[in-house]
């Protein structure tokens, strides 16, 4: 390797883009050539200076200003986790209002001719079916939403 060839490779040497063979050739040359040693040292100084530039922080409140500047319409309102949290709440509500709920379900059933039972004939155990169904429904919605999210993400 001569000095001109070395000068054409000095940057790649410093940025570690050379093949091991070329690296070795450069190493061998600079052992006996002071000019090229100097060239290499200088380029190393430039590159390490460039590589070690610290990032400077933006003025205070920058992130807040960015967040305030974002459009609002893409706000996520419904996540599957919300319906997961809603399931027990809905269950409790359904249990509290089990009588009118059941009554309306039965009235609907009577009107469509599925069956005719009066609320008073039903025991407490059967009336617990309503909240249980509501909870199951909510969980079903959660599962569907979670699956949809997982697939689309």
């Amino acid at each position, binding site marked *: 390797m001569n000095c001109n060839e070395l000068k054409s490779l000095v940057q790649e040497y410093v940025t570690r883009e050379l093949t091991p063979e070329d690296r070795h050739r450069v190493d061998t040359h600079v052992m006996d050539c002071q000019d090229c040693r100097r060239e290499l040292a200088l*380029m190393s100084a430039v590159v390490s200076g*460039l590589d070690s530039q610290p990032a400077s922080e933006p*003025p205070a409140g920058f*992130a807040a200003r960015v967040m305030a*500047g974002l*459009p609002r319409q*893409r706000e996520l309102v419904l996540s599957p986790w919300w319906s997961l949290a809603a399931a027990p709440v809905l269950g409790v509500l359904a249990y509290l209002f089990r009588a009118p709920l059941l009554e309306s379900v039965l009235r609907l059933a009577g009107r469509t001719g599925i069956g005719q039972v009066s609320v008073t004939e039903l025991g407490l155990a059967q009336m617990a079916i309503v909240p249980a169904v509501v909870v199951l429904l909510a969980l079903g919605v959660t599962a569907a939403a979670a699956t949809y999210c997982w697939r689309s993400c």
Partner: protein
Amino acid sequence: MGREVEATAEESLVRRSAHGDGRAFAVLVNRYKGMVFSTACRLLNDAGRAEDAAQETFIKAYAALPGFRGEAKFSSWLYRICYNSCISMLRKKRPEVELKEAATASVPGPVEEVRSRSIKQAVMDEVVEMPEDYRAMITLYHFNGLSYEEIALTTRKPLGTVKAQIHRARALLKTRLIERVGWEELRKVMWT
């Protein structure tokens, strides 16, 4: 392993942000604000306009996130948006006075002063004074860690041009460092 976990965490932050999760995006803003702002400072040579460009970068990124498919690293994608914001800002208005001020502010004092500072600062002072194209290339490569290919994609320049310009920029930096500091002085700085 640690980096893998970090990458996965970032992937999830990016995905959530794309779905409009503001809190996830805030984490990304805080993670990258320093790099984006510093990149803009280097490209524009003006801290005030750099803040505007950095802000614009994040707002554009948020809007474009649903289209981000993850072919590139999120950081590279973000720096590309930042580069474009800065370039359009440079084209829009070019307040010569401000640029000149930024340049003269960084002109070094006597050699003694340079010696007392680190070589890093001396290199940075020279970068500030480089032609716009060179400054951008050098910043994207050495500061943002983009590959030659990514820089070509970002700047819409042929790969050969990118490589040649980065080479010329480094060579120019080297020459200017010697001119400014002198080899003997530089050697003292380099080995102290």
